[in-house]
């Protein structure tokens, strides 16, 4: 594949960026501009905001999800090239071998999933 084949994507990029830019400009150009103290306040059900969201603490579960995501999304990324090459392997008679190789990989990660599950890493309560 040559770089010229991606020219369509470049044209698309330019058009989409222009459209997004124009829409953002539209939002700023038209419409009234009378900023008041109340209007500029972050919305907190009508009362004055207490503290700042940048110091607010949130659940550690979100970190767990992010870490698990990295692990299992990487697994998916390693599985996909194998899945693409599967047909060739199968036609050449290496089907069971290719299956066994991936089965080892997938089962190691499945053990990881079971471990995380048992440790309570996937619980939300």
């Amino acid at each position, binding site marked *: 594949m040559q770089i010229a084949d991606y*020219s369509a994507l470049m044209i698309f990029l330019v058009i989409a960026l222009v459209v997004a830019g124009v829409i953002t400009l539209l939002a700023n150009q038209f419409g009234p501009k009378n900023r008041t103290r109340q209007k500029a306040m972050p919305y907190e059900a009508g009362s004055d905001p207490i503290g700042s969201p940048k110091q607010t603490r949130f659940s550690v579960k979100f970190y767990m999800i992010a870490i698990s995501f990295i692990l299992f999304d990487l697994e998916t990324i390693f599985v996909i090239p194998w*899945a693409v090459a599967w047909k060739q392997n199968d036609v050449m008679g290496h089907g069971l071998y290719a299956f066994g190789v991936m089965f080892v990989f997938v089962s190691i990660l499945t053990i990881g999933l079971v471990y995380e599950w048992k440790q309570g890493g996937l619980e939300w309560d």
Partner: protein
Amino acid sequence: MPEWIITIVKILVIVFGFVMGVASLLTLVGDRKQSAKIQNRIGPNRATLFGLDIQFFKNLGISHFIADGIKMVLKENTIPNGANKFLHGLAPSLVFLPGLFGWAVIPFMDTYCTGDITVLANYQEVCSGEEKRYFQIMHMEVGLLYAFAITAISVYGAAIAGWASNNKYSLIGGLRSSAQMISYEVAIGLSLAGVILVYGTLDLNEMVRMQGHQMWGIVPMWGVFVQPVAFFMFFLAGMAETKRAPFDVPEGESEIVAGYITEYSSMKFGVMQLGEYAATVFIGSLVAIMFFGGWQVPFLYGDGFHFGTPTGTPDVAVPYALIVLLRIGSMVIKTLFFVWLQFMMRWTLPRFRYDQIMTLGWKILLPLGLANLVITALLSAIF
């Protein structure tokens, strides 16, 4: 005609004609009239269209929809105190653009053949002339990977919008949506691995071509017949990914106002909404392509309908122009059907709790995806 003019026409027709058209139609029909029908209301039926007092247009509620668009532009664009101005302005585009870029690889028809087409016994269509890609903005051999790489970017949009607004509701909404989206990304990836394994390609057009094959001479080899589990997984995870339907906790009105779009007003809010509708249409088209044969019409090949073996003269000969129209129509109808299905589910099912969503993603879909992959590979290795 030079290549770049064709490309621009394709982009304008597919993205700004079809996608934006359908996305707007969704706000009109789906959000206003369909929801009214389901909730036993009438919906908008009073306002006239530019003074035209025709009952039919009044019932469709078209003027409400046009007024909505104009209103978005004319409203004040507020940025809350302490918000990061640059990121606050950038986030709507980060939600909106990935929904558009994915369409670059979606095929609406097979390559346009300038010569004659002969169909081989293995359902392959051989073109004697030149093959032109008029119905796909860009042909990419890794189209499926590209589509998912691009749609994954909208996670940044939601997370940045939540963080940059300097609002607690926004922050919680942004966190919830990013955690939900990355959880279901894993399920989507694994469900796709099974599909890729069956078709052996990442090229979306090639994948649709493979679905023209027949199993036992009668059942088309659509993804939903060869990978039914993957279909349900993909459809569920795709809906969760668009933060629609029962999966809309990131913007649950009764809990956190509007989630990460709380502090957005004016056209920035409109862009976010449009981006989400475009993502809904995109998921619909991907389901149609990978599981329901994309532009394929059952038994229709390059020279007409074949109800037995695909070789020789067709049972019902169809001119090529009509075949092109039938195939484009097939793709569009399938896409619209899945968009409609998502909307029906959105208005019928109650919202899940957040822990239920996470349980579905990690404890049900992920093991199911692994099992589906292993069983598919084992079955295809043995048989």
